[in-house]
């Protein structure tokens, strides 16, 4: 069996294992039913919870739209983590890079009056460039001083959050008549069209063409890795920096480039949220997406296609979780538990191996993320 197939099988088994453990949690926390000794009811809760999860994520066009809406920023931010990781860098800074991209995209979105055909690409470009510039900072710091990117990206997340909080209350970002950290709206011409706009003006279909941007970015990431000298250099540096240096590559400048590319992906994540979903920015525009993106990259093994499917899965869980909460008493927090379990099982391949009595070698499997040493 090829390595790709093997790792795909383990990923699926990890998801199954996580669903299984979550099911157990749903049953044992259905206190009301269990208190009456009514196991049947507890199991029916489980059934309707998982049915709700499915219905809310893929059961209707609206559900699919919700899944896509959730997956879009996760995919772009996931690429920010995956691409840095391919170059041997652990990018915890997707949040900060998203915020940077959201702000630059937002600014171009309201500061200019342009036809949509120019305004949208220009605003997206600004978002990418904003994220790239912010992303390059930890790259430069590491190349120049050796400061570890895990530390600097986390710190820069804080810096970005508080800067955004301040910027949103100042001119020209401030929304007239509001005192909280919320921006004015972008021009309509800068908004990303709705993905299902061709079906008429349905306000319940939130999915926007930012998803196409994300798919394009996924393809670009694949192309970069597989078809370019830069991608080859990034991967060589990520796998063996000494060998890359020996081969005449320049690991330090690659660090900066790789972080800039990662930042550009995250910047697009922030930009598409502002230009596609909200139409404005608030201090919470990045939410937890930057951190969830780490899990997405881990689940997707940092490959372009893997990251795509992982983001879709997480988007689906998020959309389905809301439905589950509506249909049953199972809180949406269970989705957080479920995601955490998936990541845990991914990180503990031997556990999965033992649970499913899988034969064969799993050594390479647990090493999706290497240590902190880099």
């Amino acid at each position, binding site marked *: 069996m090829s390595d790709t197939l093997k790792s795909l099988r383990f990923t699926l088994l990890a998801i199954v294992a996580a669903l299984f453990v979550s099911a157990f949690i749903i049953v044992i926390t259905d206190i009301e039913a269990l208190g009456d000794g009514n196991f049947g009811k507890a199991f029916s809760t489980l059934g309707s919870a998982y049915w709700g999860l499915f219905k809310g994520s893929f059961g209707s066009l609206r559900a699919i739209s919700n899944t896509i809406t959730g997956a879009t920023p996760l995919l772009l931010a996931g690429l920010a983590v995956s691409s840095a990781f391919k170059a041997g860098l652990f990018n915890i800074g997707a949040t900060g890079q998203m915020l940077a991209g959201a702000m630059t995209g937002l600014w171009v979105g309201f500061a200019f009056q342009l036809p949509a055909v120019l305004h949208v690409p220009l605003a997206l470009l600004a978002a990418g460039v904003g994220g790239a510039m912010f992303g390059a900072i930890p790259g430069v710091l590491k190349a120049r001083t050796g400061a570890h990117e895990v530390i600097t990206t986390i710190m820069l997340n804080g810096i970005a959050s508080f800067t955004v909080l301040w910027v949103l209350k100042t001119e020209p970002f401030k929304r007239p008549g509001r005192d909280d950290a919320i921006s004015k709206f972008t021009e309509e011409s800068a908004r990303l069209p709705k993905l299902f706009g061709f079906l008429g003006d349905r306000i319940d279909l939130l999915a926007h063409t930012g998803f196409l941007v994300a798919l394009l970015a996924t393809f670009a990431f694949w192309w970069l890795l*597989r*078809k*370019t*000298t*830069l*991608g*080859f250099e990034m*991967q*060589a540096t990520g*796998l*063996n920096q*000494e*060998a*890359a*240096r*020996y*081969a*005449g*590559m320049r690991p330090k400048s690659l660090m900066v480039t790789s972080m800039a590319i990662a930042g550009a992906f995250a910047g697009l994540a922030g930009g598409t949220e502002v230009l596609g979903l909200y139409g404005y920015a608030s201090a919470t525009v990045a939410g937890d997406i930057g951190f969830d993106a780490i899990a997405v990259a881990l689940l997707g093994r940092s490959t372009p296609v893997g990251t795509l499917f992982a983001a879709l899965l997480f988007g689906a869980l998020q959309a389905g979780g809301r439905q589950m909460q509506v249909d049953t008493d199972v809180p949406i927090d269970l989705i957080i538990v479920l995601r955490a379990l998936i990541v845990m099982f991914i990180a503990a391949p031997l556990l999965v191996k033992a649970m499913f009595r899988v034969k*064969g070698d799993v050594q390479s499997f647990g090493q999706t993320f290497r240590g902190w040493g880099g």
Partner: protein
Amino acid sequence: MKFELRGITKRFPGVVANDNVNLSVSTGEVLALIGENGAGKSTLMNVLYGLYHPDEGELLIDGKATHFSSPADAIAAGIGMVHQHFMLVPVMTVAENVVLGVEPTGRFGSLDIEEARRMVREVSDKYHLELDPDAVIEDLSVGVRQRVEIVKVLMREAKIVVFDEPTAVLTPSEILEFFAIVRSLVDSGRGVIFITHKLKEALSIADRINVLRRGKVVGEALPKNATEDSIAEMMVGRAVQLVVDKATAQPGDVMLGVNSISVVDADGRTVVDDVSFDVRTGEIVAIAGVQGNGQTELVEAIAGMRRVAQGAISLAGRDITNESPRGRHTAGMAHIPEDRQRQGIVTDMSIVENLVLTRYHDAAFSQGIRMKWGAAATKADELVAAYDIRTTDASQAATTLSGGNQQKVVVARELSRDIRLAVAAQPTRGIDVGSIEYVHAQMVKARDMGIAVLVVSTELDEVMSLADRVLVMYRGRIVANVDPKKVSHMDVGLYMAGSQPAGASA
């Protein structure tokens, strides 16, 4: 005590690592187990140490069948193992390391360090293993660390001591000391299993030699009526050319000029001290020396991976002192690095990718930022065939290759470029006899094509048989420049140790 393995078979998915292996060792003798990398030596060793359980066959002690379910059982039965990679805690002292796991304790379970010291001294005095119980491991040389491992084994009262490639990390003089230790172990009534791939050592220390090939014991020999050639033939399965076959060199113009360069390491020590020499086209110059005398730094300076503090380096008359590694590659320098796993290849990348690692930017393999992977794959297939790299598919990861074949990948990549100078550091370290022969032949071939070849090696045999001119490096300086045909191994060995052969003029 007699320890015996009878009909041991150990299978792994797709491979029979040990195939009906029989061997025995008694106290008072040294059994050398010799074989190439991948012949099944390590598997066999893990079986007899209780780490693997054989699929078939049995272990016998004094004729009685026994079973090891873990190394603890093996230790209890009197089997001791000195691993190739030492299992020591670097920040602890010798005494602390030696008693680790069997600590003598005082009241309240505190470590009785005085007793630990005494135990170390007792064992080291008994077997003449000079050791300071209070020395910290990280300050000790590799040879001394090995002694600590041996003391550890002896303290656990091993009757049979297994050494896994013990000399791989030792200097020539440490190897001699090590042999003396082995002798004293045997004299004190212990048995030794000595696992190696070095013919000369097996012949000089063993009482009996068992040769392993593809998981089977293919022959047994007594050192007194065996030769290096006969054992090499058993190991490889065909006649092997141990001596490099080459015509007299026809040196031409100076290709590499090294002009009084010095290199300072991170701690501020001068590790290369005012070194000058040159290498001409069509000759092989070898730098001999014990590991750690500045050769590594010298090669890195020549290859552009380390800054020189002073002096100049030129390639075909052009100053390249401040040129980048890439610049030197394009100027015609090939570099076979000392540590292939660390520098020479990216093990998780495919063979194709590794074969273009230093030349992917050539017009043949890329255009702008676009890689031409098709062209790279074609070239890779060509090189795999031409350099006899044993793989079924060049798109597989380099980790799937044996050490010898990984080295062939590096050699193929570097020597197949359009080069004028080849710098090879430890080109045959850790690779099997068949591959060594091949790598040597390639370097001679490069020389005969008019390429200047610089080889750095700690293997004296390699230096003497491969080189047309030998430089000896000691403490950062070149201390001798000799013709290998006119000096003896012994003389070069003396230069390597920092002394002068009798009658030599400096």
